[in-house]
């Protein structure tokens, strides 16, 4: 049970790993993505933080990202950000 998560910036592929859940700061509200989430596309609020949960119940890892776009499809979650970290 894992969600494949990728974080990509124009400079490089920042993350590509399997995680439990990611909370994405969408421009119309935060949403959590677990495995099997329906296909979705959303823009991301500027200067917001991604919360990455490596496993259920674990403390989230916060990652600051600037401007971007999140896509969920059957393969997992892909976040395209202009800058990360």
């Amino acid at each position, binding site marked *: 049970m894992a969600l494949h998560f990728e974080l*990509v*910036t*124009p*400079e*490089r*592929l920042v993350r590509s790993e399997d995680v439990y859940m990611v909370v994405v700061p*969408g*421009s*119309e509200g935060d949403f959590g993505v677990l495995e099997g989430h*329906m*296909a*979705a*596309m*959303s*823009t991301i609020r500027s200067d917001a933080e991604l919360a990455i949960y490596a496993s259920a119940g674990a403390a989230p890892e916060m990652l600051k990202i600037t*401007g971007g*776009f999140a*896509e969920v*499809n*059957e393969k997992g979650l*892909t976040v*395209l950000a*202009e*800058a990360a970290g």
Partner: protein
Amino acid sequence: MASLKALKIRINSVKSTQKITKAMKMVAAAKLRRAQDAAEASRPYAERLEKVVSSIASKVERSPQAPKLLAGTGKDDVHLFVVCTSDKGLAGAFNTNIVRLARRSAEELKAAGKTVKFYTVGRKGRDQLNRTFRNDMVHGVEPGDLGKIGFDKVQEWAADLTARFEVGEFDVAHLFFSKFVSVLTQEPTQLQLMPVAVAADGSGSAGASAAVEYEPDEEEILADLLPRNVAVQLLRAQRENAASEQGSKMTAMDNATRNAGDMINRLTIQYNRTRQAAITTELVEIIAGAEAL
């Protein structure tokens, strides 16, 4: 025949030139590796963005309110050529090849009665195009070291270009840069930048994304994505150019080093011959003198 001293000076001068070209070759080789890594690292973003843009674009296209960046201005009278070159020379035919491709396309379009304008990135491209298209230059930027260009800088250019497009300064924009194939081959490439060239509706993606939830709606996402796509394409062009420039420079400097080596050999032979001739002359003089006594 040149004097011994002149030859000696000449040999030394070619030797120091060879040292410089050899050093430049090694610098280019080191920079090439970094530039190549950077070019590869920026590929995933560009690829994914392209996929997303074309999958949304294939759906929105039918609506009459489609963004200008996608639908275009409805004309193709004025073409803008964004020609990306570098600021420095000494890289073989790197800059010339890009300019040549741009010039050829420009002449074709002009023959078809279109207007062509130039927006140059890099000093070399601007200088070369200035010779033939002095009155068509719109703007030129100097990027400095190609390997150190960040996304923020490219975004400035993209914003400038998008603004010019929105006010109708041109109808179609083409991007010219050199694609890095290998150290020995760099391919000058032309790419349509604006409006976005959408690949024919991929039937596979349309089926898979039928039930996608958009937040906010497609149009707003697209309005956000399209300017970003311009910036990403520009960044990709810069990265490819950076790698190509170093590759081209490495080859050029390698040739220069070899040529210098050949020249040193030739001059050394000439030097030795001249020296031998001088010795022979001296001997003949001594013998002649001794026989006269």
